[in-house]
């Protein structure tokens, strides 16, 4: 099988099949330290499934996923999170009944056991961290608001903020600007650029303009396999990619 590597994430020969249908088929790719990797591809190419596999939501049929040389495929979801992998879902996944402050507080990496949660104290450290993150995600003045009442774009930011509270080494974002206005996209691109210091990021995105703004390297998936990989410009010119995804 795979050997130890310098990569943050090493995905090798990854396959998952649902009743014979291979949603991801013999996939191999590597993510470097502080790299922003964008995964693009047509609907049903297996993009979200790849993220599901990495964060443990779906169990792999075959292959290996190594994060800092730690095998993830047999770990529980919460242990994968503790190892340093954070994941944002496609539709904003926040706690509507809680306030923005409480949403962020829950992601603070302390008191994660039952007992820990019972005796968890909202101390100075937690409060200042929540304020710091809230300001980054443009929600500094909305802390008391019930999260359900936020706009769609604000919810997306809130979920990104929840991930930042976790401070993961590998951050995975599933279509972070979907459904956002042009202005919000611009703000989100800035936000992403500011949070990628000291961590690696995997982004799934359709908006090629946005991809060009942020990507170091692009992986194109098609029918569970890698169709092309490389810089934005290289991928854009690839005839196979134009054929199945970008169009003429």
């Amino acid at each position, binding site marked *: 099988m795979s050997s130890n590597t310098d990569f943050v994430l090493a995905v090798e020969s990854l396959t998952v099949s*649902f*009743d014979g249908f291979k*949603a991801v088929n013999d996939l191999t790719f590597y993510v470097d330290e502080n790299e922003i990797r964008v995964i693009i591809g047509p609907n049903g190419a297996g993009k979200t*499934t790849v993220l*599901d596999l990495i964060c443990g*939501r*779906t169990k792999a049929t075959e292959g290996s996923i190594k994060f800092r040389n730690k095998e993830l495929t047999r770990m529980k979801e919460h242990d994968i999170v503790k190892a340093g992998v954070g994941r944002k879902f496609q539709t904003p996944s926040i706690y509507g009944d809680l306030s923005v402050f409480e949403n962020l507080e829950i992601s603070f990496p302390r008191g994660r056991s039952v007992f820990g949660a019972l005796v968890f104290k909202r101390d100075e450290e937690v409060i200042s961290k929540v304020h710091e993150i809230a300001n980054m995600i443009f929600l500094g003045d909305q802390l008391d608001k019930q999260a359900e009442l936020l706009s769609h774009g604000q919810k997306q930011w809130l979920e990104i903020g929840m991930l930042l509270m976790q401070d993961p080494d590998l951050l995975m974002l599933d279509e972070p600007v979907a459904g956002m206005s042009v202005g919000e996209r611009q703000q989100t691109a800035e936000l992403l650029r500011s949070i990628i210091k000291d961590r690696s990021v995997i982004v799934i995105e359709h908006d090629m303009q946005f991809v060009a703004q942020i990507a170091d390297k692009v992986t194109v998936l098609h029918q569970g396999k890698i169709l092309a990989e490389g810089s934005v410009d290289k991928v854009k010119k690839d005839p196979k990619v134009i054929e199945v995804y970008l169009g003429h």
Partner: protein
Amino acid sequence: MFAEYSSSELLSIFAMQGVAGLILFSVFVLMALGLAIIFGQMGVINMAHGEFMILGAYVTYLTSNLFSTYLPDFFSIYFILAMILAFIAAAALGALVEWAMIRHLYHRPLDTLLATWGLSLILQQTYRTIFGPREVGVTLPDWLMGSYQLTETIELPINGLFVMCLALGISLAVALLMYRSRWGTQVRAVVQNRAMAGAVGINTGKVDRVTFALGCGIAGVAGSAFTMIGSTGPTSGQLYIVDTFLVVVFGGASSLLGTIASAFSISQAQSTMEFFMSGSMSKVLTLLFVVLILMLRPQGLFTLKVRR
């Protein structure tokens, strides 16, 4: 435990218990089919399912009385009409309940459970008020009485055989409806993606109502069939509801074949054990066994693996 029986006696015991099990199996299948449609396809928990069955039983009881009083010449065939009436009555009530209650609760399954439990209490009391608290039985036409002597030691009750045939027939009809008809496709489409089904022109509200009514109607027919092998009281429905839900869940809620297979294994286990220990213990052991298996394999016996 087997020592005191000879081998031919043992064979007869197993055969007779097997037949008793088959009858129990048919009853379970009839009960579970309606529920498999409502719970398995629509995801709605109907705790009043037993009361819909009892409605069918009471309709049969009324029809039987009506025929014996006014149309004694046709008494031998009243059962056919009774079943049709039972279906219509239960389905009509089902449609009404869906319209008044269930449709407001599709996104709150646990609340549906409580509301339908309330409905079941109301129906029970209604039956008690109308028909009295005592259990009633129907007179069977002659051709359904007696039994068929297979060998010297094995005999098959004819009413039991009739229930078996009925269960088989209705299962086939439901299977055809679900997997071969346009309506079945629509139901499955609505279950999988309500918004999309609506967008492609399926009247989701109507599909829901028809599905629910059909499930209730089948429960009515099941109740009608019950009168052939037992008597009916206002609270008879409640006795079956847990078994029925376990049958459906154990089979894997969305699989018709699974429902039938689980009805088979549960009924056979229970009736075979019943011979060697008290009825209550065999019931306890069967239920315990089912619960333990469900804990190990919560998705039931038959399910598909898909991306959640």
